[in-house]
């Protein structure tokens, strides 16, 4: 890849692909083969853990047969996609990139995947991630690091590094990731793709390996914002299997009409100050200027407690991680240590082998902040600071329609650069975690490059205003040209 193609487009829009399949202009088998070939030729990047070749081709043939009979085949007919390997896929191995789940064959699958398949989309591969989504670089995968398509010595970001790299490499028109503290937006920013983090609860998480349940969301990684809107439209809505899901909008999320004239845009003061790479800052300012020239009313907005969000997140998230990972006990499923003689040994030894050092670190921190004597000082305190953040976001949205800024403080860092210092690694999420704590939607759209590496622009809107982040996202794409 050359440094100039940070926004190179490999596929027609998803809507066009599906309509071409329906019209018989291209076959689903051709689309799947294009994807499978691309995967085969991009092995050196380590984005993919498992290729579902036979299943994918079987589904594609079925769709082509229906088209031949003149039947209707769905909004995503024949469109290949790649899944982060923490989405359960029925009868297809799902590992969460962890040794403790190696070989696990789920007897059921995620609602999101079922909804996509119902519209004719075809899962072709499962992609790499930081084990259990614990990380910001994909270096914490138990099955190898994924390389950034723009510079193989750099990380693709994480934890959805595999899915983001896959789309950046053109391996499929879209992939799905999960975002607990920035795990869709950060890799989207680092790889020059579009990453959407929907409102908390808008997309069912049934059948997705849980990390921190009070902030986990799932969302698409795509080449364009328009594609992202279509995938959200198919996946969103209430699900009786996930009691945290909310009602979707009655209108389609693909209706992206928006006038920039008079739109009130707030540039987040805390994200433009100390710690931001000056060249990234320049790129962000350039985009903000374009919005202003197009008629948007731009002002600086301060969210005074935003700098506390990372500290808040690194209490709440490990607490929920330690609880959610309690189910891996070596007894019911997953790795089980055969040397163990008693049931206690099964627990201790299986978890000791199956979890990697980052998993263990988070379980230990979580156990600490939840343990008796520390619960009020840490966990309860963090959940109260969370209220402060929610209030301050609400105040900000009284003044502006959307908040904007960088997705990350810098472009992609080098492989190995942050592995020795966990806290430094955590700081890559400083501009994304606040969004998760307050449950609002956000998107990262590639706007520029710095030294040949992509820069992501983040747009944040109030809860349930997912259409607004998407609509403004398409405007930003148009202004980039």
């Amino acid at each position, binding site marked *: 890849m050359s440094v100039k193609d940070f926004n190179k487009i490999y596929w027609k829009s998803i809507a066009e692909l599906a309509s071409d399949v329906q019209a018989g202009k291209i076959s689903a088998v051709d689309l799947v083969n294009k994807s499978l070939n691309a995967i085969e030729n991009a092995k050196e990047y380590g984005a993919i853990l498992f290729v579902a070749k036979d299943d994918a081709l079987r589904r594609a043939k079925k769709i082509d047969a229906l088209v031949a009979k003149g039947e209707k085949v769905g909004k995503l007919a024949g469109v290949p996609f790649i899944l982060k390997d923490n989405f359960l896929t029925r009868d297809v191995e799902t590992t969460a990139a962890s040794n403790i789940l190696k070989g696990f064959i789920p007897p059921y699958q995620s609602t999101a995947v079922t909804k996509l398949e119902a519209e004719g989309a075809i899962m072709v591969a499962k992609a790499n991630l930081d084990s259990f989504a614990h990380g910001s670089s994909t270096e914490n995968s138990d099955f190898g690091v994924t390389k950034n398509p723009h510079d193989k010595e750099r990380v693709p970001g994480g934890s959805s590094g595999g899915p983001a790299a896959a789309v950046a490499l053109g391996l499929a028109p879209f992939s799905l990731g999960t975002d607990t503290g920035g795990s869709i937006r950060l890799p989207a920013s680092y790889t020059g793709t579009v990453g959407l983090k929907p409102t908390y609860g808008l997309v069912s998480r049934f059948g997705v390996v849980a990390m921190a349940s009070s902030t986990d969301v799932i969302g698409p990684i795509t080449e364009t914002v328009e594609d992202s809107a279509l995938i959200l439209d198919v996946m969103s809505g209430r699900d009786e299997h996930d009691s945290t899901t909310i009602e979707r909008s009655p209108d389609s999320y693909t209706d992206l009409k928006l006038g920039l004239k008079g739109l009130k845009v707030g540039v987040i003061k805390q994200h433009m100050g100390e710690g931001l790479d000056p060249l990234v800052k320049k790129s962000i300012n350039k985009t903000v200027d374009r919005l202003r020239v197009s008629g948007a009313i731009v002002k600086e907005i301060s969210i005074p407690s935003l700098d506390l969000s990372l500290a808040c997140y690194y209490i709440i998230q490990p607490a929920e991680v330690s609880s959610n990972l309690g189910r891996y006990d070596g007894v019911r499923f997953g790795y089980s240590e055969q040397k163990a003689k008693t049931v206690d040994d099964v627990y201790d030894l299986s978890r000791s082998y199956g*979890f990697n050092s980052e998993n263990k670190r988070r379980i230990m921190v979580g156990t600490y902040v939840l343990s008796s004597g520390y619960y009020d000082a840490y966990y309860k305190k963090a959940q109260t600071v969370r209220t402060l953040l929610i209030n301050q976001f609400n105040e900000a949205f009284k003044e502006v329609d959307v908040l904007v800024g960088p997705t990350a403080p810098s472009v992609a860092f080098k492989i190995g650069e942050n592995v020795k210092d966990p806290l430094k690694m955590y700081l890559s999420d400083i501009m994304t975690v606040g969004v998760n704590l307050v449950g609002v939607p956000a998107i990262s759209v590639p706007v520029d490059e710095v030294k040949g590496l992509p820069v992501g622009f983040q747009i944040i809107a109030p809860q349930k205003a997912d259409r607004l982040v998407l609509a403004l996202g398409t405007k930003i794409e148009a202004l980039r040209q």
Partner: protein
Amino acid sequence: MKKITLDEIKKLAKLSRIELSDQEVESLRGELENILGYVDQLSDVDTSGLETTSQVTGLTNQMRADEIKDYGTNRYDLLKNAPDSQDGYIKVKKVL
């Protein structure tokens, strides 16, 4: 600077059901001191009069009918993932 003792790490490991090597105990001690030292900044924040957040979209109890539904799986499918099973049950090691 937050101080954590080796005994505290060992106790946490026990609560977490993880067996740690001596080397892991030592490195986790330093890492936890750093992480907890960083998150400690919240202790200076004035949160008086604020409620604690537990659910961000305002949903309260979500009820559904308690009905049996067919998911196309049976107990033997589910047991395939168990490390050991016998007569349709998960088999565990000695408890006592």
